[in-house]
Structure formats: C-alpha cells, structure tokens
C-alpha cells in the first residue's frame, strides 16, 4: 500500500499543508509590501529612477543603477566576519499598522526573534536577526497564524534598521527562482544581497584537479541571493545519513557531471533555480 493511501488519518495536518502554499505567497507579498513602503518612504525617493524595460524579466520594476530608492543602501553589503556597521544611531521611523485578515487562531508558535530598536553590535548578530525574521514569519504562517498577528510580536515597527541595512539581503532571499540562463546572465551585473556561486563547488573542484577555466567558466557561475548561497553551502557541509558523512565529502571522488547534477538539484531545492 502506498503511503498516500493512509494519509486520510492525517487530515488536520494535511489541511495545514494545503493552506501553506497560499499562506507563503501571502507572506512574501506582505514582506515585499513592507520593504516597498519603507523604500518609498526614504527621503531620497526619485520617481524618475530608471526601471527595467517592459518585456524584460523584471519589466516595470526599479533598477538599482543610477540611485533612487535603493541608493541609500550599501552598494556592497558587508561580508559576515568583517567589521560590522552596527551600533550607529537608530533611525526614527513611522510605525506600520497592517491588518490583513481577522485572526483565525492556529497552533502555538515559539517566541519570535527579538528585533532590538537599534542594531546590535556585530555583523554576525545582525545577520542572524535578518535570517530569523524571515524564517520565523514563514514558519508562523505555515502553522496557521494570520500574518497580521505575526507582525506585531515580531516588532517590525521597531525593526526598520533591519530593512535599512539588510533590505537587499531579505528581498533577494524572497525573490522567486530564475532559470539557469537568467542566473548565469546575472553574473555580469553585481547586485547588493547577492553572491556569485559556483554550481560545482570551487574549492572542492580545485582540490580534485579540475581546470580553473572550467571551474570559473560561465557555465559554472550563477548570481544568487547571499542567504540562499549560505543555504547551499550548508547543504554541502551538513552531516547527514543519506550522503554520509557530508555531501561535500561524498562528492570528493565524483565526476564533474555528478557534481554538477547535484549542484543543480540543490539550487532547485533551495528555491534558487526554477525546476
């Protein structure tokens, strides 16, 4: 008997899962709305900022070239481990009040990540908050909580420093997956919140003796969200039972094509590449 034939006794959980996809989309919309609203609020908002041409993948959206709403953001976000830009004065921000739909209850959710009113010292701590905010919000919605009820305890009203500094990281994290051709094309255009990623891992490929021309060739390079890049790296390093001891070690004696196949698969699984 296949597993799907026994799922009827899981009805409550299945209903939760069925509601999930719609809720995730709603969450992404709301977070983007928050980011957009905050972006528009910036004093240096320029309605004449160039936009991507109609018909292009991002047709109609603002581009970051030439300043505009995002020009106050760091052109190149600091790397984790570098000195943090933290501890600076806390910006005064208007409070957001968003009611999306009435409360529908839901199962208990763990305490939200605390967002202090001023950035904590240490880039590592700031990045942790940025990661936790998105994950907690998504997890909360997946457990059936209405988004409006999640925003309050998250302290988003007080957490604008997060968006001021890390908006590119968060919005790139929430961006939909792209085709391989799009990701490869993006390599030529640096964007805040993104990294260039090697589909076949660079260090491991070098250690295995693959030529640099292949490792750093256009076929092997893509531009992806930095947070998703971290997820991919974690998947290679994570101890697990299915590719023991870690995927990175498991691939050590594998061919280029096998490494590439798994690299592509992980990009799909982490929501970076369109299936």
């Amino acid at each position, binding site marked *: 008997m296949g597993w799907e034939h026994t799922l009827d006794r899981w009805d409550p959980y299945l209903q939760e899962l069925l509601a999930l996809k719609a809720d*995730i989309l709603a969450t992404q919309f709301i977070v983007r709305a928050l980011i957009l609203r905050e972006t528009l609020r910036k004093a240096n908002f320029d309605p004449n900022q160039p936009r991507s041409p109609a018909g292009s993948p991002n047709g109609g959206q603002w581009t970051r070239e030439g300043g505009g709403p995002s020009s106050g953001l760091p052109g190149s976000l600091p790397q984790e481990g570098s000195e943090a830009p933290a501890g600076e004065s806390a910006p005064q921000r208007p409070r957001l009040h968003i009611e999306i739909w009435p409360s529908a209850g839901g199962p208990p959710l763990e305490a939200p990540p605390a967002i202090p009113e001023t950035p904590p010292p*240490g880039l*590592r701590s700031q990045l942790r908050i940025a990661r936790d905010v998105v994950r907690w919000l998504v997890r909360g919605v997946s457990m059936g909580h209405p988004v409006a009820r999640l925003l309050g305890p998250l302290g988003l009203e007080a957490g604008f420093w997060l968006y001021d500094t890390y908006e590119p990281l968060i919005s790139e994290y929430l961006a939909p997956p792209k085709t391989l051709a799009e990701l490869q094309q993006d390599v030529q255009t640096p964007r805040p919140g993104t990294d260039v990623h090697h589909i076949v891992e660079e260090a491991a490929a070098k250690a295995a003796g693959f030529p640099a021309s292949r490792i750093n060739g256009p076929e092997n390079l893509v531009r992806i969200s930095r947070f998703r890049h971290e997820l991919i790296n974690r998947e290679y390093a994570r101890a697990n*039972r*299915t590719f023991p001891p870690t995927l990175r070690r498991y691939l050590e004696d594998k061919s280029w094509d096998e490494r590439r196949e798994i690299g592509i698969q992980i990009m799909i699984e982490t929501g970076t590449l369109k299936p």
Partner: protein
Amino acid sequence: MNNADSERIEFIPRKEKIKKMTNENIIEYFIALSKKRTEADSYMDIYTYNKIYKILQVIEKELKSRPGDQRSILIPLIFHPNLQVRLNASLATLAVTPDALMMLRAIAALDVAWEPEQIEALHSVEAIDEGRYIPT
C-alpha cells in the same frame, strides 16, 4: 571574545553521561538539542549543527540499546511544535513507527525552501524511496 562569539552555543554531555540519563531526561535533552540546532543554523554555525547531529545519533543508539528499543519514547515528539524537533524525532524513529516516515514526507512537502528541515526531510525521503538509506 567579541559579542558575537559570546552568543555561541554551549554544551555538551559526554557519551557516558547520556548512558546515565533516564528516558525522561533524554526526551528533555533531545528537545533542547534540537532547538539549539535551529539556533546554530540561524548563525550558520555548521560546526555546532553537525556536532549536535552526532550527539543525536549517540542518543538514538543509546535508546535502541535499552531493553525493548526505547526509541519509541521519541514518537510523541514527531508532533512537537518545533519543526527541528519533529524532524529529528522522525529520523530517529523511522524503524519503530510508520508515523515517522509520514511526518518526514509531510515536512518534505512543505514549500518553504529556506527551511533546513524541509531540505533534510526531502533528502531523507528520496534516499529511502531509492533504497539508498534503510532505517534500522
């Protein structure tokens, strides 16, 4: 030590200490470790993340070795509110209850690509379905 380092996770009992734990203590410890694993993931602290994985394996072996295969005490945790606890409990009880695989499939079906639990569950389910991993 800078502020970020001071936030690093502290632990860990040794194997002998786990051997001396009661089933009840092990359940509490299992939950605490799983939550710390979530925290380690937030910091992208793969060293701690993997270290906890190894301890969870020690716990699993210890429970299996107890009379009557006591891994079954982890079955209720399959429905714990914390997703990491659910995942770890499901992986630890695959050989003792069909509910474990059901939960793994449910977690794997979550459309939340940034959840490490979803990816780990997905890989586990694939490995089981392909016969690469046989829980014992």
